């Protein structure tokens, strides 16, 4: 069975620094897949390579059969890939409404702007109350909602979430993972990168372990949660 997103033998890095070595990974339609690993393992680089912010030096990426590497970065979102970047990266001095508007920038999404907005408000009623507030003045959890909402405005098939729980209070982290479940339930395919291994293994079907730029293990969430190496290194048991 072929996947929705397929990465084959990806090498990538910044200048002379190589961050990813021969990474292969696939995500099937409807799945939630996690990439876990320590800080500096190359998880964010992996996300950036998929959404075109950096280009791989080796290997191929295909989204539903389309060559992602050959697609200009600003057209990759039109393939159905929406990336919620690390640290959310909202436009802090734009209102929540304008941030959401930016998510629907591409012509295909503009046409469905109103209905997408309704969908995002259904998921995050809080955002509706905050529409005219500057995004940078909201709490971390609200900013994360806004960042996910902005990504959903483009009507994606695949949502890339880069460390959605980073920098949030424990209670809010809980809420964010609840949100991920709800987003899955709406039919979206999700690829999520997390250091919070325990939590993420509860919401994904499968996961990859990325260490020092290479995939070290892969399997179902239950398998990984049961594996001794992961237990010792990441779950603290």
């Amino acid at each position: 069975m072929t996947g929705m997103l397929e990465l084959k033998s990806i090498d990538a890095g910044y200048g002379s620094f190589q961050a990813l070595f021969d990474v292969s990974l696939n995500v099937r339609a409807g799945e939630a897949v996690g990439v876990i690993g320590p800080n500096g393992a190359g998880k964010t680089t992996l996300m950036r390579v998929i959404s075109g912010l950096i280009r791989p030096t080796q290997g191929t990426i295909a989204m539903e059969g389309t060559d992602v590497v050959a697609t200009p970065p600003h057209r990759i979102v039109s393939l159905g890939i929406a990336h919620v970047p690390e640290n959310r990266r909202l436009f802090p001095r734009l209102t929540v409404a304008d941030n959401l508007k930016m998510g629907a920038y591409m012509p295909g999404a503009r046409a469905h702007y109103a209905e997408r907005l309704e969908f995002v408000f259904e998921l995050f009623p809080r955002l509706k109350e905050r529409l005219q507030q500057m995004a940078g003045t909201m709490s971390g959890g609200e900013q994360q909602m806004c960042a996910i909402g902005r990504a959903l405005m483009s009507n994606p098939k695949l949502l890339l979430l880069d460390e959605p729980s980073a920098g949030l209070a424990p209670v809010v982290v809980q809420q964010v993972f609840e949100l991920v479940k709800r987003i899955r339930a709406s039919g979206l395919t999700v690829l999520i990168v997390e250091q919070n291994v325990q939590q993420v293994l509860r919401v994904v079907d499968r996961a990859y372990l990325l260490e020092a730029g290479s995939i070290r293990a892969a399997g179902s969430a239950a398998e990984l949660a049961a594996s001794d190496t992961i237990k010792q290194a990441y779950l603290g048991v």
Partner: protein
Amino acid sequence: MQSFLGIFDIYLLEAVINGILLGGVLALLALGLNLIFGVIDVTWICYAELVMIGMYGMYYLVQVFHLPYWAAAPLVILLVALLGAALHFLVIAPLLTAPPINQLLATGGVLFILQSFATVAFGIDFRNLGIRLPVLALGEMNFSYARLLSFGAALAGMIGVYLFLTRTFTGTAIRAIAQDRQIMPLMGVDPKRIYLVTSAIGGGLAGLAACLLVLQYDVHPFVGLSFGPITFLICVLGGLGNFIGGFIAAFVFAEIISLGGLFSDLEWGYVLAFAFFIVMMFIRPAGLLSRRA
């Protein structure tokens, strides 16, 4: 004594109002420059020379091709908008990742090229539209229609840009790119296109300013020097890239020039404005609206 004060107040009021009228056009120029700086992070040193080319455009369309003013103005705005886009495409885009000083020197080079081009192509004669608008007398105060018209058109231009920046997808992208350029591709935005559109708007504002200034001033190849430097001071005083700061600073400068001119010569008004600028640079080096660190 009483009558002296009465007349004095009338002159004062006239100077204040003339300052506001002058401020409108200066604010328009500052907005164009601030837009380019805020979004693309480059300073168009040659901004006032774009205005000069636009003024020549008006002169030729009106005096040589006998177009009515109202038909010539949109053509000139379009012409200078294209010139702004060409400036970005030919000079700025190849230097986007170069050190700022190189970009500054390159647009400085364009300044001399445009001045020399104008000298060779149009000669050094002072030229004007031959349009003399009447003067509005309000009691004992006199206001030229040229200034009133300029103020109204400048205000309309600024409101137009404001609506474009706040109401449209492209305008929102222009404001967003100024805050975080790296993630723009994630929004499906091609930064190159946004830069080109922004440059065209910056050029269009210079074109509009040209249409208005040509009503009040003669055009010659070095006319840019009369308002180029003051536009930069306004932008720096307001905080480079800060639209509201630039707007306020434009009126502060215009009032200093106008009121300074009332108490002595117009030249002294400029001297006062520049002195004010130097003092402010010591007090608030990051601009009028900067937050204290």
